[in-house]
């Protein structure tokens, strides 16, 4: 095998070629990872400022208050800006790039025994397009108009007239391009570059999740790109795709051709944004599946059912989008259809979650940090999913629509759900990426407070929402009669949010400390079966493996009776 001589070939790369404009999927994965973690932290800080405002509407924001004018408190339009940017950054610049860009890029080629992605240069282009999109999005804070303030959903007609939206749209076009390039690459890599013997049903659950996710990104993002182009036309070319005739703004009829439809935006937007929910959750389910199998020392219960459920989830996610639009008056027939599909799509999610719970049965569970996060994911995602059911039925959705109940619901899915899974993934694969183990003590110090405070933030949202408190109120409902009984919860949630921020400090310390002085990890510190653990830690630049990879087993052969050890790596005969 010529891998050794080849790793020598690459020694003459200078720093910039090796770490900045690299085409190695591992470097690009790490670039994605660091950038998106920073964005997550930034998005979180925006939320912390908003939460301060909600709990103490008349008190100046501490430390950063000077940014918001003399009073130090947020003006309503500043609050809206932070809200819009929090959503946009968390979803498009934080969670998706971390789940698909970082984890997908780093692990998919390793888990299928490939030397790199199918199109390494396209991969780099995808990261840099994401980076440019991120820079443009950040720059909007410094524009004279300020950052976008029409929510991450950018509903017209408001978004056509509000400041800052143009920059948001331009940035989104870069981010969409990045997603398209990245996900195309992942699909081709999985189809074409699987190692000999790695048949479809031998693929790990994580690779399956990335495969379905990539299809969702490839097929669902372009309609949003189309919508973004139309909205850009509305803003810069004076068209009226999303503006109805006779629209009155500040007492005057808006001078446009008219006959446009604000509903059109909502359809195009949610056609992306509902599959996007599954883009957020599927990679998380993949990561959790890996970690559960490894730490229960058992195969995933009903592996095939999980795979088929993921595929079904993927298909079905394209026909549920209008359950976000029950209040738009689109009609009974439409509502009935989308209610039905929404109830149907909950079935595969429940199948997956049930399989994961059953996987725990009778396992000799190892409670290490990745496992704790993965275990916490299950009930948290469960709460998020189950609270979604009343939102999927038009009758109950009419009451709950746009209240804090909705905020609580999707944050349970994404924050203690997906983000916990991503944390689990970071703890689990850190030894592979760096060759060092992370500190268990600090890991537990990160996990337990995070679990507590996540619930401290989001559980009261259900109570507030059921009481009828609307989202996007800059004063947190102070001027809202039926909010008065539940308003005191704001202080509790804000305190939880700040403590959640503090709870991330052990994580940051852990990453830096382990990088320099962590315990050395061998190739396979967790006694895992999947292919990536056959590579050295960290894997060799550009070639990954130091031996020829051939796969002989399905992905989770743990505790096979009569086997020599309690795990049989896929690459061992």
């Amino acid at each position: 095998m010529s891998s050794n001589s080849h790793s020598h070939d690459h020694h003459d790369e200078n720093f910039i070629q090796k770490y900045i404009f690299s085409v190695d999927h591992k470097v690009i994965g790490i670039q994605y990872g660091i950038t998106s973690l920073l964005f997550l932290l930034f998005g979180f800080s925006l939320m912390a400022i908003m939460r301060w405002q909600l709990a103490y509407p008349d008190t100046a924001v501490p430390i950063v208050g000077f940014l918001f004018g003399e009073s130090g408190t947020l003006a309503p339009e500043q609050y809206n800006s932070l809200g819009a940017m929090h959503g946009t950054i968390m979803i498009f610049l934080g969670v998706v790039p971390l789940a698909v860009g970082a984890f997908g890029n780093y692990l998919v080629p390793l888990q299928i025994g490939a030397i790199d992605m199918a199109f390494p240069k396209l991969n780099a282009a995808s990261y840099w397009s994401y980076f440019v999109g991120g820079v443009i999005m950040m720059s909007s804070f410094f524009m004279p108009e300020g950052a976008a303030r029409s929510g991450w959903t950018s509903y017209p007609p408001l978004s056509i007239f509000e400041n800052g939206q143009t920059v948001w749209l331009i940035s989104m076009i870069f981010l969409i391009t990045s997603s398209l390039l990245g996900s195309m690459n992942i699909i081709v890599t999985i189809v074409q570059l699987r190692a000999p013997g790695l048949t479809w049903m031998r693929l790990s659950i994580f690779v399956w999740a990335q495969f379905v996710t990539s299809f969702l990104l490839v097929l669902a993002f372009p309609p949003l790109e189309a919508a973004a182009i139309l909205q850009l036309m509305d803003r810069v070319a004076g068209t009226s795709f999303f503006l109805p005739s006779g629209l009155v703004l500040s007492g005057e009829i808006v001078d446009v051709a008219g006959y446009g439809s604000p509903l059109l935006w909502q359809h195009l937007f949610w056609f992306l944004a509902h599959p996007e929910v599954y883009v957020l959750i599927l990679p998380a389910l993949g990561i959790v599946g890996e970690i559960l199998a490894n730490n229960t020392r058992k195969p995933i219960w009903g592996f095939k059912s999980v795979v088929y459920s993921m595929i079904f989830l993927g298909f079905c996610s394209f026909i549920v989008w209008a359950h976000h639009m029950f209040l738009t008056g689109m009609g009974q027939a439409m509502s009935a259809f989308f209610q039905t599909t929404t109830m149907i799509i909950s079935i595969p999610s429940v199948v997956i979650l049930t399989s994961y719970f059953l996987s725990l049965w009778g396992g000799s569970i190892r409670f290490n940090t990745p496992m704790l996060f993965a275990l916490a994911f299950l009930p948290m995602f469960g709460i998020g999913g189950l609270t979604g059911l009343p939102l999927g039925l038009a009758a109950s959705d009419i009451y709950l629509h746009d209240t804090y109940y909705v905020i609580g619901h999707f944050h349970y899915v994404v924050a203690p759900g997906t983000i916990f899974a991503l944390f689990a993934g970071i703890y689990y694969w850190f030894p592979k990426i760096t060759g060092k183990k992370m500190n268990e003590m600090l890991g537990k110090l990160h996990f337990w407070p995070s679990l507590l405070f996540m619930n401290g933030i989001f559980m009261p949202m259900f109570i507030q929402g059921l009481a009828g408190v609307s989202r996007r109120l800059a004063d947190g409902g102070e001027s809202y009669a039926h909010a008065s009984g539940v308003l005191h919860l704001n202080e509790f949630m804000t305190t939880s949010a700040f403590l959640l921020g503090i709870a991330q400090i052990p994580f940051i310390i852990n990453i830096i400390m382990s990088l320099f002085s962590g315990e050395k990890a061998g190739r396979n510190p967790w006694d895992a079966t999947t292919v990536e653990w056959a590579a050295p830690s960290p894997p060799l630049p550009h070639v990954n493996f130091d031996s020829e990879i051939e796969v002989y087993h399905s992905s989770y052969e743990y505790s096979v009776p009569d086997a020599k050890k309690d795990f049989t790596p896929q690459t061992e005969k």
Partner: protein
Amino acid sequence: MEVPYIIKEREDTGLINSKLGIWIFLASEIMLFGGLFSAYIFLRLAAPPGDFARWASELSVPLATVNTLVLISSSVSMVMAWASLKLKDFPKYKMYMGITLLCSFIFLVIKYFEYTSKFSHHIYPSSSTFMAIYFTLTGLHGIHIIGGMIVMIYFWLPIGAKMWDSQPELFTNRVEVLGLYWHFVDLVWIFLFPVLYLL
């Protein structure tokens, strides 16, 4: 070490990487134009009866017919260019690729005259919803034409075509993939022509 299946197909999938890649890219393109065509339908239903047809009558059907023929010819010459490479006839490839380039250039010139004649009659995207979707769809299609032309010029000029000497199979594959993209752009126009000009 090179990424495998760039030149030779993988046995069990029967595909080279770039061909699968371009098909998936085209699937996403279908969703992009599909989104815009759906918007067209949505807006047409929302507009007063006859409004779209009245505005569509402002467009020049003869020019668009010529453009349709020009684009179809360019698709044919694109296939011929690829076939010439398969037959290892590089001068023929240069000729056919040149014809394709010429056709796409003619298409853009005609499009330019169509646009400017609208502007000179003070018809802009903001004039009506039909004009808005007309300019958006044809503009986006025009950008796709320009994108294809950039790649064609690169493969036509010596800078890109010198790959023919070192790796003829890889070069042939690249032209084939470019061709698939080009046929798609052509196909989009085949849909745009009746939807915008004739309906």
